[in-house]
């Protein structure tokens, strides 16, 4: 069972408050040119079937309950991958009146993929990273906190970690 999960993680995608840029790039990952399915990743619509939650966009006053709901419905162990700068800090929309902040203010995030939007290659990298974390969680090992520090308060975005900066658009 454990092997099956790490060889074939099922991914559910939730568009939180994004501008679509990250969503279409994530969808592009699933299609033949980038093809995450070669890693066994399957895109599902039902959070109850999923191991990995891919979130794009920041959290606003309305959808934070929906996000929490989707997250709570997923079976343990689960991993959250935040695609783009928006779910990290709110990104370009951080100062908007309806934006609460990053996804990290509602649910724990395991992997951050920086970029606005990140390239599909970086997104694939993020999902592969998530699979490793999933395996660790399954074995009951401690996992490292995500590379990008998440500020739950509003403010300027922290600089992304240097090794990931090269993948930024």
């Amino acid at each position, binding site marked *: 069972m454990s092997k099956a999960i790490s060889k074939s993680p099922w991914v559910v*995608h*939730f*568009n*939180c*408050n*994004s*501008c*679509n*840029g*990250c*969503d*279409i*790039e994530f*969808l*592009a990952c699933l*299609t*033949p*040119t980038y093809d995450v399915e070669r890693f066994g990743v399957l895109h*599902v*619509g*039902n*959070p109850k079937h999923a191991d990995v939650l891919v979130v794009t*966009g*920041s959290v*606003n006053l*309305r*959808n934070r309950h*929906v996000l929490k709901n*989707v997250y709570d419905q997923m079976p343990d162990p689960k991993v959250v991958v935040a695609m783009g700068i928006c779910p990290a800090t709110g990104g*370009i*929309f951080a*100062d*908007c*009146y*309806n*934006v609460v902040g990053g996804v990290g203010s509602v649910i724990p995030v395991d992997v951050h993929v920086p970029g*606005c*939007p990140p*390239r599909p290659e970086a997104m694939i990298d993020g999902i592969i990273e998530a699979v490793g974390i999933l395996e660790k969680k399954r074995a009951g090992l401690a996992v490292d906190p995500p590379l990008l520090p998440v500020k739950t308060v509003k403010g300027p975005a922290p600089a992304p970690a240097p090794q990931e900066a090269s993948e930024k*658009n």
Partner: protein
Amino acid sequence: MSMLVPFGPQHPVLPEPLQLRLELNDEKVVSAVPVVGYVHRGLEKLAEQKDFIQDTFLIERVCGICSFMHSMAYSMGIEELMGIQVPDRARYLRVVWAELHRMHSHLLALGLLADAFGFENLFYTIWKIREEIMDAMECTTGARVMLGSCCIGGVRKDISAEQAKFVLEKLNNFEKMFKRSSEVLMGDYSVKERLVGVGVIDGKKAYELGAVGPSLRGSGIAKDHRMTGYAAYGELGFEPVVEKDGDCYARTMVRVRELYQSMTLVREALAKLPEGELKTPFKGNPSGEAAVRVEQPRGEVLYYLRGNGTDKLDRLRIRTPTFANIAPLLTMLVGCNLPDVAVIILSIDPCISCTER
């Protein structure tokens, strides 16, 4: 007995969170009520807090799918306020990128539509073809989605002769590949079974309800803002694409034919590309009022800007095409079967993140 079914906000066929409360009588939809606000950010307000040059890149993020056209409409608005004359080369380059954006957006919509009626193979094929267009955009601007190449007074990037050659090569590939897929889209029995006669709206009703873009042109009304010849469209021999039937199939056909048309426009614009400056320098701050309309893949977008002589705008208002198309959508949904709901929604190609901003 009727019952209430919530459709969304997290739904497999919708890449975006739109919720529809459907009132059903058995399988038939009696009424539909949209519930919005899941992607509302408050961007218009933020645009008033940043200065008008920064806004160009903020406005680009109204929507990732038609990002270039948003920044183009905004720049056109500021140019009107400040009386800036855009150089010829920039006008042509804007057409090139705008049409590339239209192509990728239409391909995206057709792919998602194919996914909604369960033709997964077609979805993947169309998205594979879309990568040709993405390559063309990446080669010319360095980014795939947020091009960032439009700025007030012109454009920030140039297309060199080699790049133009690469774009044309990609277009040739696209044409070859899309020919096969469009045959399937136009002629396949199972596709027609799901699209013909579904979600019908006649031209008069669509016009009254304020439909724009392919939703209107699919009902036989030739209205396309490119006909007014903004940017360089006036010099490129543009004719709107119209279909008569007003069903999902007609709207799909409009998109398929527009793809070929956009391809011709890009080729033509690259062939006629005049030499010259990319950008007119400007000084000062905008003041006064301006309303600008631009034809986006989903229809016509309206930008209203009001400047007050400082570097911050007084008001920015965006009326997006999907907002205009929601009223016709609710009319189309009445009387259809529940399994057709997803197909009808995707046939207007909704962009919720534009609508809610």
